[in-house]
């Protein structure tokens, strides 16, 4: 019975794709929900607080409670709002955010010639991703405009200006990588990093830096969260939204974070490859998934020892059992091989998402003119230089390891020039 079902699924690629889409949608929704939890927790720890603690042990059920609350809340449409656009806008945002995952390769593992861990490998993958994720800005602009209220409108204006500015820098930073891979397909880009032996970060650290900064700006997050600056615009473009539609916007925002991290990981950090995949000496790293699950188990054990509430202790014991079972499952060689790519990809994405939260806890918000200044007068010239220098070096010597030195030295020099040209408005540099 099971065998015939599996056969049927593998005989119909569309059915397989549909199942993959459903799984990706479900998993990403869950990840996004718990990303909010993680953000609140990490932010709290960095501020010497505890974060959500009341719903479930260590507040673990908080996302569920939040989701339920948002679903049940009244859905208000302002009297003067453009009703259809108002209803459409959040849907556009979430649609754009989720569609991107169709072209992101989570891992490269084939069963009977079918790829299990990605839906499609389009030969214009990166272009598709950039195009679709840029559509998300329509959701923000339309939502801000349709609300017929000044705060959302101002937030939307800021958001669109910011996205347009930083998309240029991000795009040009990505082109530097494309020159190495000479392919737009996400799978090809990762495979090229495998044959090269080193991840693209080491060839293009400047481009990576530019992309990280631009990514933070594009997802409207601190220190570039001007579109929803609470102190100035109450909540920015979604001020008038409530209930389920607000939840959609919220989800779209966090999904965009995941998307941007996935792109960065695929292009710069070698996607599903483990660190230094071509060095056989590091083969012991393939046992990392087991160690990670056991580490998770030990962490929960520590929580169990610390907790004095009986119900929490039952829950933690259950979690420990889950971790142990998972570790035993991973100890089976075929399973370990299958999970390898997915594990490294998720670890990298998780590190990236953590960094996003880390920036939020650390850096204060930019002023609007500073934001534009950084975007247009620093990032874009730097990205252009990086692109030109990379292109020249590759045309001259081909993608070898030593030209990376040339690229980086020149880019650093340009960075220094740009920095010295920029006046330091606060005079921080002279005070030191």
């Amino acid at each position, binding site marked *: 019975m099971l065998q015939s079902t599996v056969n049927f699924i593998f005989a119909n690629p569309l059915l397989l794709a549909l199942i993959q889409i459903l799984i990706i949608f479900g998993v990403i929704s869950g990840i996004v929900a718990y990303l909010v939890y993680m953000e609140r927790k*990490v932010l709290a*720890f*960095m501020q*010497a*607080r*505890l974060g959500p603690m009341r719903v479930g042990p260590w507040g673990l059920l908080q996302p569920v409670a939040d989701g339920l609350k948002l679903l049940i809340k009244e859905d208000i449409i302002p009297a003067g709002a453009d009703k259809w656009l108002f209803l459409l806008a959040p849907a556009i945002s979430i649609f754009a955010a989720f569609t991107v995952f169709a072209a992101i390769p989570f891992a490269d593992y084939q069963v009977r010639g079918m790829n299990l861990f990605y839906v499609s490998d389009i030969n214009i993958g990166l272009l598709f991703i950039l195009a679709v994720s840029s559509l998300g800005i329509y959701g923000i602009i339309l939502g801000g405009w349709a609300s017929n209220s000044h705060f959302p409108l101002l937030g939307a204006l800021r958001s669109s200006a910011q996205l347009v500015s930083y998309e240029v820098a991000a795009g040009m930073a990505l082109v530097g990588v494309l020159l190495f891979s000479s392919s737009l397909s996400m799978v090809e880009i990762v495979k090229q990093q495998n044959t090269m032996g080193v991840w693209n970060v080491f060839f293009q650290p400047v481009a990576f830096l530019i992309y990280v900064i631009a990514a933070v700006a594009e997802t409207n997050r601190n220190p570039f969260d001007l579109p929803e600056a609470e102190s100035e615009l109450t909540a920015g473009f979604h001020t008038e939204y409530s209930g389920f539609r607000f939840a959609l916007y919220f989800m779209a925002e966090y999904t965009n974070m995941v998307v941007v991290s996935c792109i960065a990981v695929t292009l710069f950090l070698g996607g599903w490859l483990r660190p230094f995949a071509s060095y056989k000496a590091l083969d012991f790293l393939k046992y990392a998934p087991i160690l990670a699950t056991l580490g998770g188990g030990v962490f929960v054990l520590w929580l169990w020892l610390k907790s004095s509430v009986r119900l929490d202790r039952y829950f933690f014991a259950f979690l420990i059992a889950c971790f142990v079972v998972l570790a035993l499952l991973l100890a089976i060689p075929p399973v370990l091989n299958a999970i390898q790519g997915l594990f490294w990809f998720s670890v990298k994405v998780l590190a990236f998402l953590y960094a996003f939260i880390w920036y939020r806890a650390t850096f204060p918000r930019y002023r609007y003119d500073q934001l534009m200044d950084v975007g247009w007068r620093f990032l874009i010239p730097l990205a252009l230089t990086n692109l030109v220098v990379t292109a020249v070096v590759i045309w001259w010597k081909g993608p070898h390891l030593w030209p990376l030195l040339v690229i980086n030295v020149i880019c650093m020099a340009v960075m*220094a020039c740009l*920095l*010295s040209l920029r006046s330091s408005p606060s005079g921080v*540099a002279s005070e030191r």
Partner: protein
Amino acid sequence: MDWKDFLWRIFLVDLIKGLRLTFSYQRPDAIYTEQYPLERPPVAERYRGAPRLNNHPESGETLCIACNLCSIACPENLIVVGWARTEDRKKRLTTFTYDLSRCMFCGLCEDACPVDALELTQDFEIANYSREGMIWDRQALEEGPQPSRYTR
């Protein structure tokens, strides 16, 4: 700007310093939050909270001799001591009301008490749903506040 400054800015040293600081705060002992109903905060030694009328630890009789000195000492006049004479002309405490809603916890009443019967304890859970509930009678004063213990 000298070259050291250059390098400082190129490698984003200031930003990295900031990131290191926030990262270091994630250690478990840095957490400042108390989970109040589960864990009670330690109160300072000289904290003056809910008043209490002390009983003799062995006989259980009140220590109060109904001398009325606390009532006289109180700047807010919120203590009312009621007494009756026994057959041998001794004063005996009957009622004792203490209006907590007007109390400023100055502690003059406990200073005035010659027998250490009235005492401001370190109990801080004295919130109440009504103004009438803030007026404590003798029984409430002897028992002290009885908050419901939080369990989960």
